[in-house]
């Protein structure tokens, strides 16, 4: 199993730039594919993924595991996930510390739960099970959220760190999500970073967000990374770098050169170069 270089810069794989990608095969260290886009029997997505994999390492990032859902884990989904991870020999597989459905229904959103002590073992046990099924590193990512819960007994970063430590798995640290939640809930994002066991961070995510009229920030992935998020990334790099860094851009996707230019800014914020490339 190939490992990503700790300074690697990667891009979220999206069909919108396939034509440009296949025509130019640009210098990108790796791609991250959304798991659910490549499960099932459909042939063209798999064919395209194989083309990408023939040139670049591919890591997998899911949105459908439903780790914190009260329903049992979906074994058929896990089977598909294992098969896909094996087919691209993913250096790691990740999903989110959230729930996405219940009572047999799927909500297709990354939903938060209260951070309670009685949820820790449940989450950790399921995450450890997923990693064992995969037979390769598995990581969980922090959410952006728009509510907090009276029932919570600890901070998000305490809950997040405890789950990954107990499960002995990796972390995907989404810097934009930390920033968005810190603004929505009024906590100090640097306090969050200070509590992160960086030796477990397999990758950092960066993305754009949107400010609603009421001042609330929404994690939209539809624009460049905000200056404040870049600065938080620089703090994370100082605290716990190096780590592979990935840019997610899911909506209003610009041309590939613009995406790559945005990604290259990471080199400035972590101090590799003295000007924004």
């Amino acid at each position, binding site marked *: 199993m190939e490992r990503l270089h700790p300074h690697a810069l990667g891009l979220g794989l999206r069909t919108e730039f396939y034509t440009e990608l296949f025509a130019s095969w640009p210098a990108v260290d790796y791609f991250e594919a959304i798991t*659910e886009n490549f*499960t*099932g*029997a*459909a*042939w*063209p*997505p798999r*064919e*395209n993924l194989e083309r990408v994999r023939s040139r670049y390492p591919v890591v997998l990032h899911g*949105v*459908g595991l*439903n780790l*914190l*859902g*009260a329903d*049992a*884990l*979906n074994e058929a*989904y896990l089977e598909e996930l294992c098969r896909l991870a094996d087919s691209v020999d993913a250096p790691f597989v990740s999903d989110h510390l959230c*729930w*996405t*459905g*219940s*009572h*047999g*229904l*799927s*909500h*297709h*959103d990354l*939903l938060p*739960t*209260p951070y*309670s002590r*009685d*949820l820790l073992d*449940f989450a950790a*046990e*399921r995450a450890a*099970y997923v990693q064992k099924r995969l037979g390769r590193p598995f990581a969980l990512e922090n959410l952006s*959220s*728009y*509510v*907090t*819960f*009276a*029932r919570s007994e600890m901070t998000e970063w305490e809950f997040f760190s405890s789950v990954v430590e107990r499960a002995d798995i990796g972390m995907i640290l989404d810097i934009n999500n930390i920033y968005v939640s810190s603004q*929505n809930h009024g906590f100090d994002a640097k306090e969050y970073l200070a509590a992160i066991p960086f030796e477990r961070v397999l990758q950092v995510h960066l993305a754009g967000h949107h400010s*609603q009229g*009421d001042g*609330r920030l*929404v994690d939209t992935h539809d624009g460049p990374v905000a200056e404040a998020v870049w600065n938080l990334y620089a703090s994370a790099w100082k605290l716990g770098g190096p780590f592979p860094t990935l840019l997610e851009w899911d909506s209003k996707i610009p041309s590939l050169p613009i995406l790559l230019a945005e990604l290259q800014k990471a080199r400035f914020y972590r101090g590799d170069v003295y000007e924004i490339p």
Partner: protein
Amino acid sequence: MKSPEWLQEFQAQWGQLLRTPLETSGGVFHSKSRSNWKAVYAMIPETANAGISVYHFQYWTRLFNVLQKEFPLTAELMGHWDFNLLAQRYLLEHPPCTYALQDLAEYFETFLDKVTLPGPPGCLRQAAAWDRARQKVFAAPFTQAWNPQGLAVDNLFELTLKPCADWMIISEDWPLLDLYLALLADRSKKLSWPDRLLNAQTYLVQRVGAALVYRPLVQLQSRFYQNLQKMNLGLALIELEKKAQGSEADLHEYVRRWLQEGVVWGLWLSPIAETHP
């Protein structure tokens, strides 16, 4: 791995909240808190009303967008506002129950059969059938097509030809393919209800590489390919003779040509010769 008891109830209440229809007053879809959300509010601080609305609004708009992408021609002909109103009714009857977003469209065509639709009677249902056919053909599993050297096969008329998964035959009474292609060329194009064709037109929709091609078929050719999905070549020919006008020799010549075209287009898997006792 048993979940804490409160988690099921919490997720049931949240799911119910998400599935509450959006408000449509003022000509826009928006989220408005309801009295039956009190149970969820009991778990969050009172300031979270706006936060809950983000999730509620996101749930519906994400699903609307998926259905619009799965049924682009239908949505454009109806107009997005009316399409979304219809989609909301559909989703209340068929809430998503798998992790795969594309499964959302599974019952939409059947649902359309039960509702009153605008436009020329039958036109929108055909548009939906076109949309679904394109999606199904595009996402079909890859199969290796039969590629014989000529058609010098023993017992030709006893051959049963199993179709590859990546094509479908579809008929239209309105110029729906032309409308769709015009829409593809210019997404901002405003579509109006088309005039009915003088004669119905039939197409074979096929995936070639990663693209779709549309092959116009004459009526007998279409019937021949459809017969071949149910019976061996000899019986398909007999069925065709019952419907055809003109000489038997002419028909045999046509059938030979259609068979050759079908092989060139890659319509069938390697044939299975039937053995008769």
